[in-house]
């Protein structure tokens, strides 16, 4: 068999499209602005890199401690510490423009207008391949997840961003809702190109000696292997309800995990916490998917997507 084709189109309805050479990308907030790990992994081999969530103004983020390790999981309350949209455009985009690997910019706003404003600023900037709209950050007081828990609000943000940019646009949903399918359908109707499922689950840890929450921000978002089965189920449900490509994200730490998400209906995956554990993991996942396809004589990634959905 010839080499299997791992490429995937994540924005089929956008005129620019978002074609990845493979379906494995670095999740927002876990890979900085793309350069931090460049000494130890060949970032050009990734399907894409999603940069740290950016806001209109730079943010200092939440007080420390910002991280707690839990069984098979990680709670974070970074609070969107970032350099701001202007610095990203000036300092990071020119660098990305020289890369082969597409960079997707994750954005967060405190109002609908702010989301649109950032999207407008990013529009036409060389080096930026797509926008991922974060309506799911559990760690900020205003904005973030509050736009992701109400279908109407989610749709409003989506439309505003779509109108402000020609770039392919992904919306990243929060799992902290009663029915994620409703939210997904609302943003798809509003014209989104693809969906990332999902951001972190709200959680906390308590220091029993001090009798107080460990995190400086009290609550944080849970990521890592602990959430994988939960997110897999969300992908499985949403994949049956919408037509746009889904990017699965939550606890993926091996090629087998990634394949589970693809078979549940995801067209691509994002890897976050697992990179902290082993910076090589994303490359291993790309290789592993290729090996699996080769073994199973699957020529094209599309032949895997959604194959575990019982119809």
């Amino acid at each position, binding site marked *: 068999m010839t080499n299997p084709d791992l490429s995937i189109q994540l924005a089929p309805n956008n005129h620019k499209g978002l074609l990845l050479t493979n379906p494995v990308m670095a999740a927002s*907030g*876990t*890979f*900085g602005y793309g350069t*931090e*790990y460049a*000494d*130890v992994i060949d970032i050009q081999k990734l399907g894409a890199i999603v940069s*740290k969530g950016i806001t209109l103004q730079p943010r*200092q*983020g939440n*007080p*420390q*401690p*910002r*991280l*707690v*390790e839990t069984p*098979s*999981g*990680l709670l*974070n309350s*970074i609070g969107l*510490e970032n350099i701001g949209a202007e610095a990203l455009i000036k300092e990071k985009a020119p660098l990305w423009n020289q890369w082969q690997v597409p960079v997707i910019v994750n954005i967060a706003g405190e109002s609908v207008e702010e989301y649109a404003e950032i999207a407008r600023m990013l529009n036409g900037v060389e080096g930026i391949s797509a926008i991922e709209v974060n309506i799911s950050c559990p760690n900020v007081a205003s904005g973030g997840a509050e736009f992701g828990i109400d279908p109407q609000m989610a749709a409003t943000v989506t439309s505003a961003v779509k109108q402000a940019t020609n770039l392919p646009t992904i919306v990243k949903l929060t799992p902290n809702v009663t029915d994620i399918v409703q939210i997904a359908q609302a943003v798809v109707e509003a014209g989104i190109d693809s969906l990332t499922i999902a951001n972190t689950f709200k959680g906390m*840890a308590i*220091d*029993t*000696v*001090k009798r107080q929450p*460990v995190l*400086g921000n009290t609550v944080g978002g849970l990521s*890592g*292997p602990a959430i994988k089965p939960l997110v897999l189920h969300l992908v499985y449900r949403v994949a049956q309800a919408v037509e746009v490509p889904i990017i699965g994200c939550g606890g993926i730490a091996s090629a087998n995990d990634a394949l589970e998400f693809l078979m549940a209906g995801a067209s691509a995956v994002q890897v976050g*916490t697992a*990179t*902290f*554990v*082993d*910076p*090589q993991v994303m490359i291993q996942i790309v290789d592993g998917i290729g090996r699996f396809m080769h073994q199973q004589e699957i020529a094209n990634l599309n032949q895997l997507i959604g194959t575990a959905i019982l119809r």
Partner: protein
Amino acid sequence: MKQILAPIVSNSEIIPDVHLIRIEAPQVAAEARPGQFITACCGDDVLLRRPLSIHRIEEGQLALLFAVVGQGTAWLANRKQGESLDILGPLGNGFKVQQNTHNILLVAGGIGIAPLVCLAEKAVDDGISVKLILGTATATQHYSEVDGVEIIRVTEDGSLGEKGMVTDLLPSIAGWADQLFACGPISMYRTMAAMGTEIEGKSVQILLEQVMGCGVGACRGCAIPTHQGMKMVCQNGPVFDLREIMWEQITAPKIGQF
């Protein structure tokens, strides 16, 4: 920065509950400086890599000195010669000895000795005079000797050297030094930060610990408040100027477990 599988040369408990592990890591050792650290994968039962200071750099090998405090370090303590360790490093900024420095005073609280030995050995090599105040709870926890370094020993129970804390002795010796370097618990740093004239005008560099996600500045997890805004322990640190940190806003990393 490199990620390598480093063969373990030796691993032994040199102080109760404190292990010295030697690994073959020429690529990392070649780049490493005192005050920098590596992160090590500590088995399948813990998630995050554990940050550990570079304790000694010797001919392609690295020595790490660590206290067994939880699951990750317990796993590390059980590793045998012949096995390998997945390490990432060197990471962080490291200590900075100024050009015109002749005398340096090192202040170690307990396991805080770990990175200071590396600094001491390098300084001695460079012809700098080194004194070390080492404090532990009791005599059995004391580190043996460092070639060419005068060690002033302190114990909380008085079983070795002076009875008390390193910070009790610090004011009387600080005057001798051009630069001070400290590693120990946050309480020690707080006491030092509150010192006035005793260490006034002296450059004091301290090594700060926080729980880390990535270790390379990608996740912004190990942020600490400084007078110049939030800084990352992994990237801007772990070595900071004592007076740069907003001590009243800092929480020690250890999660209390009864």
